[in-house]
């Protein structure tokens, strides 16, 4: 068969192609692009001055600081976990490996609200450890530690998920070579493994960070919504919205949408340059 005939036999005509592309773009436009445009449109509806004022109120600034603080704690911790878990899973054989991977993925299949609930049941005033915590004057629920714990739970699998298939594919011959040349374990990790996985690691950290800053359901359950103290940016958006301060709500929301856009751009750049295969990531 000539190339022309092959193409005709295994592809669609120009008209069907145009229709299919048009259909897909219309669907994406309606369901994905329009909501994104709406966030910025609503935020800037009353002018840039109102927008600037709305994101500089003391409560808004406090929520931005708290969100950055939560991400600064939970992302590095889960990054270290992701590296350790993927090293143990990909470099060694042991029984129960499939079970371990399933358990690591568990937080993905649990409702965010339930993710918050489990920490309330454990550390809340009526929780398992509640009386002990109260006696020692430690506050976890309706305080920052609870938000950190819920965020850690929600973002638990992100980095490990990204690294496990990547390291699996790279095998361990390079590490074995380094070890046979006399490098110790840390040197091997630092000079051989880390440079090999750095882009995949960055990719996982980006997604982990986006989720950590944007988590709503789990954080909402454990936070107590104390303004200026336990209000993260997504929670502040909800409070402003429920008070009918729509410009304020969309102004803070637009900062989060901007974070999402930066995440997507960085993610795409990493994909185009390093051809990462991430499959069904989250």
């Amino acid at each position, binding site marked *: 068969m000539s190339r022309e005939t092959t193409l005709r036999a295994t592809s669609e005509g120009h008209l069907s192609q145009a229709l299919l592309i048009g259909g897909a773009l219309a669907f994406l436009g309606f*369901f994905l692009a329009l909501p994104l445009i*709406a966030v910025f449109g609503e935020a800037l509806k009353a002018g840039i001055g109102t927008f600037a004022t709305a994101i500089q109120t003391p409560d808004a600034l406090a929520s931005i600081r708290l969100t950055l603080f939560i991400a600064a704690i939970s992302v590095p911790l889960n990054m270290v976990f992701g590296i*350790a878990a993927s090293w143990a899973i990909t470099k*060694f054989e042991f029984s129960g490996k499939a079970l*371990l991977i399933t358990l690591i993925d568990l937080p993905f299949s649990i409702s965010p609200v339930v993710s918050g609930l489990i920490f309330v049941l454990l550390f809340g005033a009526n929780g398992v450890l509640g009386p002990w915590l109260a006696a020692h004057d430690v506050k976890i629920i309706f305080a920052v530690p609870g938000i950190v714990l819920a965020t850690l739970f929600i973002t638990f699998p992100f980095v490990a998920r990204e690294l496990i298939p990547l390291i699996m594919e790279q095998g361990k011959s390079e590490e074995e070579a380094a070890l046979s040349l006399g490098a110790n374990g840390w040197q091997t990790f630092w000079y051989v493994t880390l440079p090999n996985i750095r882009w995949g690691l960055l990719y996982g950290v980006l997604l982990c960070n986006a989720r950590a800053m944007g988590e709503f*359901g789990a954080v909402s359950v454990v936070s107590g919504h104390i303004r200026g103290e336990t209000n993260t940016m*997504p*929670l502040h*958006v909800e409070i402003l919205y429920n008070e009918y301060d729509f410009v304020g709500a969309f102004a803070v929301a637009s900062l989060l949408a901007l974070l999402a856009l930066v995440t*997507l751009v960085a993610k795409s750049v990493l994909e185009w340059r390093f051809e990462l295969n991430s499959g069904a990531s989250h």
Partner: protein
Amino acid sequence: MPGFGLTFGFTLTWLGLIVLIPLATILLKAAGMGWHEFVAVGLSHRALAAYRLSFGTAAAAGLVNAVFGLLVAWVLVRYSFPGKRVVSALVDLPFALPTAVAGIALTALYAPNGWIGQFLEPLGIKVAFTPIGIIVALIFVGLPFVVRSVEPVLADLGRDVEEAAATLGASRLQTFNRVIMPAIGPALLTGFALAFARGVGEYGSVIFISGNMPGRTEIAPLLIVTQLEQYAYNGATAIAVVMMLVSFAILLLINAIQAASRRRMGI
């Protein structure tokens, strides 16, 4: 290879502290409740209505996403058009955009006086504050799961089988139904299952657009929050456990269907 003790030990400890021990708490709590109390809240009329709504809207949104997610994946893998990279990046937006932001944006679009809602209102179509609004939010949240599950399988599918089908006289549609669909079916089902599971538990994007009327547009996760706000920890636990059990059963069923279809395909 060094480091097994350190990394394996750290992995298990961290997994236990952050995930397993907290999760065990809810099972302990449920086990400690009397059966009557569990049923009284966990299977009350209001709770049953909430489960029906959550599972029903998640299934509906999953089906819409299976159709359009397949279309988007197909277009991204098979055709070239200007702006394709931007479109491909946009597909991941629901993974990156906080759910609360998506929720208020969709409400701004579909409320009766909203960007789109004002044109639907005269036609008698109500989206926001009805189950349709919940489905719209869950379509937004679930789409990338389907696209990203189907895309790699579609890209790996060799053109040779399609050529063979064409040589044997199959039309394009026959080739799609008989050759392409069976090959990407399991991936499509995976995408549907992921989108469905996410949709059942989804909270942030739904509560703004749903209107939250008990018995009509009150989703199960919201009912858990409502119970918590009344300090009804047992009630919240019962509803959460029922939700988890049903989700788990449905995902097991989907896994079984998948395993069966893989066996039939001889993969």
